């Protein structure tokens, strides 16, 4: 048997068989959290799987941080600039290092955070990865010309999904639903701001100074390494990173008092779409609301829900139907979305969704259904824990929210406690007609 195969087999053993026992935690791995002197937090999850290491850097800055007018999309743009290298390790050398390593590497930007990851084989490579990643966070170098050359790439990224009506619907939904908060724009940003990015060199320096600092960053490392060795490397290479001390004030979104509507006429033929949003809470495990809403989304809108079965399978009015109650650091939206077959069914589907929301407010959900949803959530989460980068990738989101993998266990602990009455109460509290935003998109052309 080859060495490689041995490694692969061991990897698949990383999910303990007892992971789903009722009394056990949903996140079954031991982890440690340490903070070094400059405020950089390190979450380490040593795993018994030879070879593979996932090294994630989570900067708690996303499009939520783009609070000034004209700066939408900047966190994402800055993510691109983070790949431009340093004076010691220019971009070409950085790329060559990761290429030789054969690493799975990239970055992505969300509303609340930006994540950079390097997934690689070979524990002997950890030191060099720590060194080279630390170097770019401490010593990133680019000039104005490099920024001007990179800026049109964002325009290209915008174009890459220009033909996707879902993106346009989502842009419209956020723009309509929010008045002041930076969640009003998407992570990609408005096209007008993207086109102005070549002129934003000075702002890019300010953005880096404010947010790319150890007191706003978390390292998440999972896989085959020794914790003490990791911490020694982190102290050595990240220790000189100066904290920022900057405190972001996101604009407070005023209460919504009147239902809103908007429509987008898509220029060519496409399936009609509808998204309905309600004001939701920020992520928290301090109260039951967030957990209750997650279960509600599944009970009322998942593929096994009565409404889905009726609209998608039986009546075939919709091609898809779903709910997304995304976790965000500030109060966000509970979004119910559907793709329909025919434009003329939009009012029918809207009424069916509204009726279902009213029903949930008045009728307690079935206990068996509630148990099924809890089971689904547990098994769904267990499946992502099958690989090292699956573990790190799924935790990156939670760590952004709460800076501690324990928040996953806390959330799933809350799921266990949610009762039909909790769901009913959450429905009454959040599905308020005056706090709703409904956007539709229909196609034209041939």
């Amino acid at each position, binding site marked *: 048997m*080859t060495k*490689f*195969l041995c490694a*692969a*087999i061991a990897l*698949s*053993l990383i*999910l*303990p068989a007892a992971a*789903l026992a009722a009394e056990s935690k949903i996140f079954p791995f031991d982890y440690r959290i340490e903070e070094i002197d400059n405020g950089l937090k390190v979450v380490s999850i040593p795993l018994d799987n030879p*070879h*593979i290491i996932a090294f994630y850097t989570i900067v708690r800055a996303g499009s939520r941080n783009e609070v000034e007018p004209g700066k939408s999309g900047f966190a994402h743009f800055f993510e691109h600039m983070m790949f431009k290298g340093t004076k010691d390790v220019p971009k070409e050398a950085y*790329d060559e290092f*990761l*290429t030789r*390593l*054969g690493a*799975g590497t990239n970055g992505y930007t969300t509303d609340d955070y930006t994540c950079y990851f390097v997934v690689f084989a*070979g524990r002997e490579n950890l030191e060099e990865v720590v060194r080279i990643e630390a170097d770019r966070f401490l010593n990133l170098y680019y000039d104005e*010309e490099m920024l*001007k*050359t990179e*800026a*049109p*790439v964002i*325009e*290209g990224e915008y*174009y*890459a999904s*220009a*033909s*996707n*009506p879902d993106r346009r619907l989502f842009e419209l939904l956020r723009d309509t639903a929010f008045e002041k908060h930076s969640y009003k724009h998407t992570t990609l940003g408005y096209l007008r701001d993207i086109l102005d990015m*070549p002129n934003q060199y000075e702002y890019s320096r300010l953005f880096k100074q404010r947010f790319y600092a150890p007191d706003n960053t978390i390292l998440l490392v999972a896989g085959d390494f020794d914790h003490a060795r990791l911490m020694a490397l982190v102290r050595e290479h990240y220790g000189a990173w100066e904290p920022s001390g900057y405190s972001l004030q996101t604009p407070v979104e005023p209460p919504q008092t009147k239902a809103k509507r908007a429509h987008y006429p898509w220029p*060519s*033929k*496409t*399936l009609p779409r509808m998204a309905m949003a309600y004001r939701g809470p920020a992520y928290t495990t301090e109260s039951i609301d967030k957990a209750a809403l997650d279960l509600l989304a599944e009970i009322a809108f*998942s*593929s*096994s829900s009565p409404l889905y*079965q009726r609209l998608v*399978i039986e009546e*075939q009015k919709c*091609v898809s139907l779903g709910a997304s109650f995304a976790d965000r650091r500030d109060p966000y939206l509970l979004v119910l979305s559907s793709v329909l*077959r025919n434009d003329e069914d939009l009012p029918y589907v809207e009424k069916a969704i509204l009726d279902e929301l009213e029903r949930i407010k008045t009728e307690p959900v079935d206990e068996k259904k509630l148990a*099924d949803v809890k*089971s*689904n959530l*547990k*098994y*769904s989460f*267990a*499946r992502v824990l*099958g690989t*090292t980068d*699956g573990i790190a990738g799924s935790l990156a989101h939670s760590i952004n929210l709460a800076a501690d993998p324990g928040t996953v266990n806390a959330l799933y602990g809350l799921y266990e406690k949610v009762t039909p009455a909790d769901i009913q109460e959450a429905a009454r509290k959040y599905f308020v007609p005056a706090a709703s935003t409904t956007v539709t998109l229909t*196609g034209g*052309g*041939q």
Partner: protein
Amino acid sequence: MTTLMRYAGVGIVCLGLAMFVTGCGGKKTGGPVVELLPIEGNPLVSLRIVLNVGSAHDPAGKEGLAQLTLNLLANGGSRDLTFQEISERFYPMAARLGLRVDKEMSAFSGTVHVDNLEAYYAILRGMLLEPGFREEDFTRIKTNQVNFLERTLVNNMDEQFGKEILNLMLYEDHPYGRNEAGTVESVSNLTLDDVRSFYKEHFLRGNFTIGLAGGYPDGFVEKVTADFAALPEGRTPQLVLPETRMPSGLEFMIAEKQTPATAISMGFPVKLTRADKDFFALWIAGAHFGEHRQSLSLLFQKIREERGQNYGNYAYIEHFIQGRDKFPATNYARQQQYFSIWIRPLANSNRHFVVRQALRELRKLVEEGIPEERFELTRTYLLNYTRLYAQTLDERIGWQIDSRHYGTRDFLDDVQKRLPRISREDVNRAIRKHLNFDNVMIAVITEDAESLRDALIADTPSPISYANPNMPAEILQEDLVIQSYALGVRPETVRIAPATAFFRKAGLPME
């Protein structure tokens, strides 16, 4: 005996049971083939049920039938359960039955916790072996398939649209030359009887490979094998494919639509697969030239990094579908392959320049080969990166099945053994043998198609401008060469059709 050995032993026994009994004429065949990857104690089990049948088996005039039939199994009811009942039962297990249909191979897949394996498999078995073929499921899935062709593919996903147009160009009058979803006309005319006939014709035990990986219990392999062995004996003969046609010069197919950005895919057939001795050498060339979504890609460096034209540019020496993360998906094995370049959407104003740039880079690759330092870098990259390919159970059993299909013992193991033995000259020889730069099919989705056609035919210079007023002199110097790089496009090899005309009938639309 360790559990691993015990399961390996079971595998050998099953494979023994599944051995083909071949003969001339009316072949009597066994089956199914079983691929096993037992891992004692693993709480998950992955099943991949691969059928050696795909869209290339669609009868003429019934394009889309394989996809419709298999989708009806994966997303329809069984004899005993409606699809609603199946959805309700799968839900607490967080389970589903996935499906991918390709030209000659289709795969059903699912991963479940071992707690749920028995219940999941009982449902899956009913879906595949005792399908319900209900009219309402048929109508739902057929309507979705037509909508995908008519509305989504041509209006909402230009990158994919470009790749599908290239496929039509590569395989005109060839069984591969049909979209897996078929055409609006063909799918609209399909009936439930067509589906039943296709199922009956191809659900033969010799067509199946059953892949099982993870902590499945004793007796499970025998149970699954026995169920699929109960299908009628026989197998669909492997398709005898016609020779693919090489393009004659640069052949353009321009799909015209209102759009702010131009999507481009280009390529030509190549006569090799993973079973070919040149494969690994050409693979190094392909990774150097356009590794999928990696900065290693030369095209990525030249078009995106140096000039900021778009989000990315890649090249492939075989049909490529992205699986988890950016790794290749498995079970898309084909007898015939093609080389392709994928240019992600860019501003319409720069389309002519970038077509020139990509073709010029291709020419340099063919004429100059891979530079020594790039050869060594790319080989090192592939040796390490492929170690990440198979991490999940599903990925691992998928690679195992593909290895068997192409007649290699273990493809990923072969990578480690064979790449170090390949020389730069091997790569350059493979490039010269299999790649070319002057006979290429090019699919373009853009607006104002006539002006592009005129510019292409006239070889009009196509300068571009930059937001950066201080672009490096060497890039501006190279731009001067690119903007006037002669393509020599002949008028008769540039076709234009409205985007809405594609996938309505078989083949490319007539101008």
